[in-house]
């Protein structure tokens, strides 16, 4: 399992664009929003939590189709399916690699983008925490979508259509945590829901994704 993780991370570093591409996209988005909304602090601050979360979602979406597509093309997926490691484990590891290359940089860079969008400093820790809890679910659900569409030629657009509705609960609770953090309101309820969704997704989705992969391999 560790071998698969290190290989995927190494490939992300060497192939270029694995790390950082999502963050760069996030940066562009954060820079564009004020052009659309206006530079006014009073206008930006209220929408900042939502924009940041939607931005994280889209940045995560960008690299989803790479989770399985390359391994499918070069036959690695066939070989992984015959390996002693269960396919569910391979799915989980590949989702983890996606999170480390896409989700984690977003979590770390998020305060910077929060500053750009005039997010009140008091909300920063909550933004980071909500992203830290929520983005693993985004990667895992993305792996499920990627597993469904791995054999398709024009899977990218379809992948977005399939995955984005699955992101809605995570988005709602994630933005809510940040918003409440900015207002100084009680955080616990959305935080518990957010964590619950992520845990359930991490526990159950690997089975659905592996089932979809097996169908696509035969």
């Amino acid at each position, binding site marked *: 399992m*560790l*071998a*698969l993780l290190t*290989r995927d991370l*190494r*490939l992300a570093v*060497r*192939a270029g664009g694995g790390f950082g591409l999502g963050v760069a996209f996030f940066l562009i988005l954060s820079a564009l929003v004020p052009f659309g909304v206006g530079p006014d602090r009073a206008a930006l601050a209220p929408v900042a939590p939502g924009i940041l979360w939607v931005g994280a979602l889209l940045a995560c979406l960008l690299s989803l189709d790479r989770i399985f597509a390359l*391994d499918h*093309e*070069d*036959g*690695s997926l*066939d*070989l*992984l*399916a*015959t*390996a*002693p*490691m269960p396919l569910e484990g391979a799915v989980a590891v590949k989702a983890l690699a996606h999170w480390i290359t896409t989700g984690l940089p977003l979590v770390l860079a998020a305060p910077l983008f929060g500053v750009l969008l005039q997010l009140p400093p008091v909300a920063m820790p909550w933004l980071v925490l909500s992203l830290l809890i929520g983005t693993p679910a985004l990667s895992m659900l993305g792996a499920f979508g990627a597993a469904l569409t791995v054999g398709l030629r024009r899977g990218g657009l379809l992948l977005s259509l399939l995955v984005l509705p699955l992101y809605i609960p995570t988005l709602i609770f994630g933005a809510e945590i940040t918003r409440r953090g900015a207002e100084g309101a009680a955080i616990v309820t959305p935080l518990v829901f957010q964590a619950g969704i992520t845990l359930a997704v991490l526990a159950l989705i690997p089975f659905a994704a592996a089932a979809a992969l097996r169908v696509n*391999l*035969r």
Partner: protein
Amino acid sequence: MRHLAVHDLSVSRGGLRAVEGVSFTLDAGEALILRGPNGIGKTTLLRCIAGLQAPVAGRIDAAEDSVAYAAHADGLKPALSVAENLTFWSRIFGGKPIEPALAAMDLTALSDRPAGALSAGQKRRLGLARLLVTGRPLWVLDEPTVSLDAASVTAFGVVIRAHLALGGAALMATHIDLGLSEARVLDLTPHRAQPGAVARPASFNEAFA
């Protein structure tokens, strides 16, 4: 020791039965070559035995995790070096050393090259070297000699013979003579599936025809 026993196997491709009623066994030290015209279902049969696809009917008896499968695609990452590619598969399959495999496929001198820089034949040899690091007794090979030159084919024949001598077995679909005079040959042509009604439809194309 028996590595593989196939009883009355039927496999389907594109939702239609391709070959049916195939039975054979493969003991330690044996090699079996599948023959038959293009499109008869050799690849599908091999994928079934590798466990990537479920057979339509019949039984496949093989020990768990005993099959090493190699097909047209070698599963190589162009950005990784030859040694890194092989090390990865070695760790996935249980950690056999890569040096003997590199030496056997004459890749030692290339071990630090990125796999993307290899020629087609060299890539193929690296893909076959992966078989050696898996440590699995039953090799299931789909056209293993594609894009190999005559010298490499001979070298590969030697590798297979060594594998058989160590108690392994090999099941291959190939058109080329590997110089394995001891290998048995199974022609699939008589097993081509006859269209007709089936009791339990295995696919949409069978259920609605």
